[in-house]
């Protein structure tokens, strides 16, 4: 949870996934898109200012087995870059968006040891033309025994389709969800999602859930 600098209107802390960690230099990097007032305020924080952070919180992705498929939609790239950096095992990363302009992750951050990067845009303006799901199904169909697990973060509609593919192929599938939060520690029950085991807190029981437990009913 990242606390906004004091201001009169926006006061709830904002949840972000971790993008990069450099323990040697003592650096933590977050990567976010300006979507509303809160991220607008954060984007305007001056260099060298101090802001409060509370975390890490919740349950993240489990360890990555060899030949995992990482599926990032838009800003969903952030936690997957961090995940991929935790291992040098070979894995495949799909990085998808509607247009090239939405593939905003710096190229240097996408050069990760062991990672085969496949970019795809719906309008074909960068990488292949199509959706993350088109590419994911093709990879799974072409070489069904090669891949050992799926890890995904991105828009809800994409995660639903990833979960469906995970179910069809029987591959362990992990998805990172997003909800608006207030406390960040599992107390206020504001950020729940519907699962087969009832409402679960994204901040405390997640944000990463096994895809098969999440109920997408929209």
């Amino acid at each position: 949870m990242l606390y906004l600098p004091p201001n009169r209107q926006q006061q709830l802390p904002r949840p972000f996934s971790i993008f990069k960690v450099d323990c040697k230099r003592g650096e933590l990097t977050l990567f976010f898109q300006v979507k509303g007032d809160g991220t607008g305020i954060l984007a305007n924080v001056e260099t060298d200012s101090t802001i409060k952070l509370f975390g890490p919180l919740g349950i993240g992705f489990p360890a990555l087995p060899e030949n995992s498929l990482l599926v990032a939609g838009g800003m969903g790239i952030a936690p997957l870059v961090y995940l991929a950096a935790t291992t040098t095992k070979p894995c495949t990363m799909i990085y998808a968006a509607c247009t090239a302009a939405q593939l905003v992750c710096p190229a240097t951050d996408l050069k990760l040891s062991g990672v085969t990067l496949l970019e795809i845009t719906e309008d074909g303006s960068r990488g292949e033309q199509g959706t993350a799901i088109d590419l994911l199904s093709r990879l799974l169909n072409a070489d069904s025994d090669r891949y050992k697990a799926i890890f995904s973060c991105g828009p809800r509609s994409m995660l639903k389709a990833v979960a469906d593919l995970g179910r069809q192929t029987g591959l362990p599938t992990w998805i990172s969800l997003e909800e608006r939060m207030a406390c960040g520690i599992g107390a206020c029950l504001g950020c729940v999602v519907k699962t087969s085991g009832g409402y679960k807190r994204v901040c405390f029981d997640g944000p990463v859930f096994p895809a098969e437990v999440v109920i997408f009913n929209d």
Partner: protein
Amino acid sequence: MTEPDLHVNLGGLRLDTPILAASGPIGNSHQYRERFSTHALGAIIVKGVSLEPWPGNPPPRLAETASGMLNAIGLQNPGLKQFIEQDLPQLKGAGPRIIVNIVGRTVEEYAQVAAGLNGKEGVDGLEINISCPNVKAGGIAFGTDPDQTYQVVNTVRRQTNLPLLVKLTPNVTDITIIARAAEAAGANALSLINTLSGMLINIETRRPLLGNTTGGLSGRAILPVALKMVWQTAEAVKIPLLGMGGISSARDALQFIMAGARALAVGTALFHNPELPDEIYQGLADYMTEHEIASLESLEGIAHLRR
């Protein structure tokens, strides 16, 4: 001059400080210990407890608003049995007194929860929630009608020896009518205000933003409304008041005391400032020292006096 005395007696509940954590933000278990500074708190009011487990409302359950927050959690809770077996042992001896917020769909359910908590070690008081705007049955249905308020409070009163607070809704034409009914039924103190009913629409989906359609507005935006209702209620009843609604500083807290509150509760502001109870405690003590005030009683309702 001696150290300022911040002890208060809230309807038979003797508290080390007049600062309470309102029901909701800090949950109904021990989660708060990881995050919130509790030693300046006189009491913690835990999240609503019902007889059986309640699932709560469908998501999304919250949204930020201008200087506030809209929520519709829907009183999700594990029910009385699990609260007593799992949550209460973790709350006991935590430091602050523990007040349990109780909810029900019927008068009988409120009575059963109250009876189940009576005499339980670690429970120092009850707060009857007749004001949640986010559940259809129970909750606010009782708090908007003086006869039903009387009935539920009086029935619970007969089930418990514990100090009894009644939490009032601002979503009524005249809060003092409900306040008087609760007092007549045997309440020891009144908590006010609960959240203000409101809604938002998501212009992309063209549907209400919250899963429950409507929610309750809290946070700094509602302070003047809450303060006015505490002011009015202080003139209508004799029992002490626990004031709340948008408090985010010692200056805010002092206003509630001057309007007639014996104690005050913080809620939404804890999300961005977990150290707020300490800051309020220090701010109250500093104000008392600066103005040579020995106890908070002499400030209670002082704004009502014409000079």
